[in-house]
C-alpha cells in the first residue's frame, strides 16, 4: 500500500485532481481544508462550460489558504501552490519542475483532459504523486488513474455513492483497483496525512 511515511524522506510532491460535473463544491471543500503550509504542489483539471472556466482560479483562490494560479506555458511547479489548467488547453506535467500545455485534440471530447494530466504527472512523479478523481459525467480520468496506479502513485477515488454524477468514479473503479475509495472527509484526512509525510 502506498502512503507509508518514509522516515526523513519526502514522499509525496504533487497532488493531481480531476473532476467535472458536481465536483466544484467537493474540490472547494477539500482545498479549504488543506493548511496554509501544505507541502505538496496541487494541479487541477476540470471540465467547465466556456466562460466559467476562466474564473475557476479566482473561485478556488477565495476558499483556499494556498495561492491559486492559472497555468501558463512552462509554469514552474512549486510546493504549496495550486495550479489550474487554462480553458481549452491540455495541462501536462513536462517534468518534475514544470508544467506544459498543448492544444492537441480533445480526449473523450474534452480539453483540458484529466487523463492527459494524470498520465503525464504519473510519468514524471511516479510514486511521489497522489492522483485524485472526484465526480463527473464523463469517463475522462479513468485511464489516467490506471496509469498513475501502474507507476506507483497513491490513487484516491471519490466513492460513487457520494455523488449524483458517478460516471467518472464508476469508470475509475472499473479501470483500476485504486488505493482508496473515500468520501470528502476521508479524502481530506488522507491528503492531510500525506502532507505530514512530505
Amino acid at each position: 500500500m502506498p502512503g507509508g511515511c518514509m522516515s526523513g524522506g519526502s514522499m509525496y510532491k504533487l497532488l493531481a485532481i480531476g473532476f467535472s460535473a458536481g465536483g466544484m463544491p467537493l474540490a472547494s471543500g477539500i482545498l479549504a481544508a488543506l493548511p496554509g503550509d501544505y507541502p505538496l504542489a496541487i494541479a487541477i483539471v476540470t471540465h467547465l462550460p466556456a466562460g466559467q472556466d476562466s474564473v475557476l482560479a479566482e473561485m478556488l483562490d477565495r476558499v483556499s489558504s494556498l495561492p491559486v494560479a492559472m497555468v501558463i506555458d512552462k509554469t514552474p511547479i512549486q510546493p504549496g501552490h495550486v495550479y489550474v489548467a487554462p480553458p481549452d488547453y491540455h495541462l501536462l506535467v513536462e517534468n518534475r519542475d514544470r508544467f506544459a500545455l498543448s492544444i492537441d485534440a480533445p480526449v473523450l471530447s474534452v480539453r483540458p483532459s484529466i487523463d492527459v494530466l494524470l498520465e503525464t504527472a504519473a510519468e514524471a512523479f511516479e510514486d511521489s504523486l497522489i492522483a485524485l478523481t472526484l465526480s463527473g459525467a464523463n469517463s475522462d480520468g479513468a485511464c489516467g488513474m490506471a496509469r498513475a496506479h501502474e507507476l506507483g502513485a497513491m490513487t484516491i477515488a471519490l466513492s460513487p455513492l457520494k455523488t449524483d454524477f458517478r460516471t467518472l468514479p464508476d469508470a475509475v473503479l472499473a479501470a483500476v483497483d485504486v488505493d482508496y475509495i473515500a468520501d470528502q472527509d476521508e479524502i481530506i484526512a488522507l491528503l492531510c496525512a500525506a502532507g505530514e509525510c512530505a
Partner: protein
Amino acid sequence: MAVIKWRNHHLEDIEIALLLEAMKARYGYDFSNYAHASLKRRLKQLRDYFDVPHLSHLIPSLLYDERVAQVIINNISVLASDFFRDPPVWRYLRDEILPRLATFPRINIWQAGCGRGQETYSLLILLHECGLLDKTRLVATDINVSAMDEARAGRWSARDLDRWRTSYLAAGGQGHFDDYFQREGDTVMMVEHLRQKVEFNQHNLVTDEVFMEAQFIVCRNVLIYFDDTLQERVLELFGRSLQRGGYLLLGRAENVLQSSLAGRCFQKIDAGCNVLRRTAEVAHAGVAHVEVAHAGGLHVGGQHV
C-alpha cells in the same frame, strides 16, 4: 553487467531519443527540442496507429520507408486550430491592433505555424472586413507540407461550421460568416478571392531563417510545443523579422518574457490577449550571421541535409 529493472516509460524515453535521432539523420527534421510531454503523447498514439508493441519498431520502418516517416512527421507537427479560436483575442485585433497596423504604408504579415489554415483565413476575413486586404501581404508558413496543402485548398469538414460561426460573431464579425464559404456536400470551401490573397511557404522554425520584414507576426500555440532552447531561437527569429514597432501575437497561455533573452526585445501591450510589441534591438546571442532570404527562395525545411 548488473541487471537493473527499468520502468517501461523510461525505456520509452530511450526509444524516443533514438527515433528522433533517426529522423534527423535520415530526413533532416530535428524534433529534439520539442517539449517532451506532448511529443511523447503524440508518438505513443503513433505506436497504436501502426500497431507495433514498441516505438523502437518504427525506427527501421521510417529509415527505409518515406511514407512511414511522413506519417510520423505529420503526427508530430500538425497544429490543431479553429476559426476565430479565442474570440476576445480577435476582437482585440480588430479594435486595437489593426487600426495601428493601418498606419503603416504596407502591411507584411507572417503567420508561423498555419496548420490547416483555419487561423490564416480568420486573419484574412478580419483584414477584409477592416478594408486592409489590398495593402497587405500575408505569408503563412508551416513545417508540414501536407497540412499546408490542405490550407491552400481551403477546404474543411462542414461539421464545425456552427462552432466557427459562433466564434466569428463573438469576435465581432461584421458580415455573414457563411458568405465566406462555398458549401460542397459535407465540406465547406473558402471563397476564391480570399484564397488567392495568401502565400503559403514551407518554413521550419527549427532550422530556417528570416525571409521577410514583417509588421505583424502571428504565431499562436506553436511555442508551447517547443522547449526553452527552441523558444529562444524562434523568438530571436521573430525579433529580427519584425520591424521595430511591429507586433507579435502569441497564444493566450503562452509565456516567453520571463526567461528568454530574446523576449526582452518585446513589450507586452495586452496581458489578456498576449500581443507583444517589438521595442528594442535584438541581441544576436549565439547567432553567427544573419541570412535574409527572399520569400520565393525559402529553402525547403528539413530537406537540405
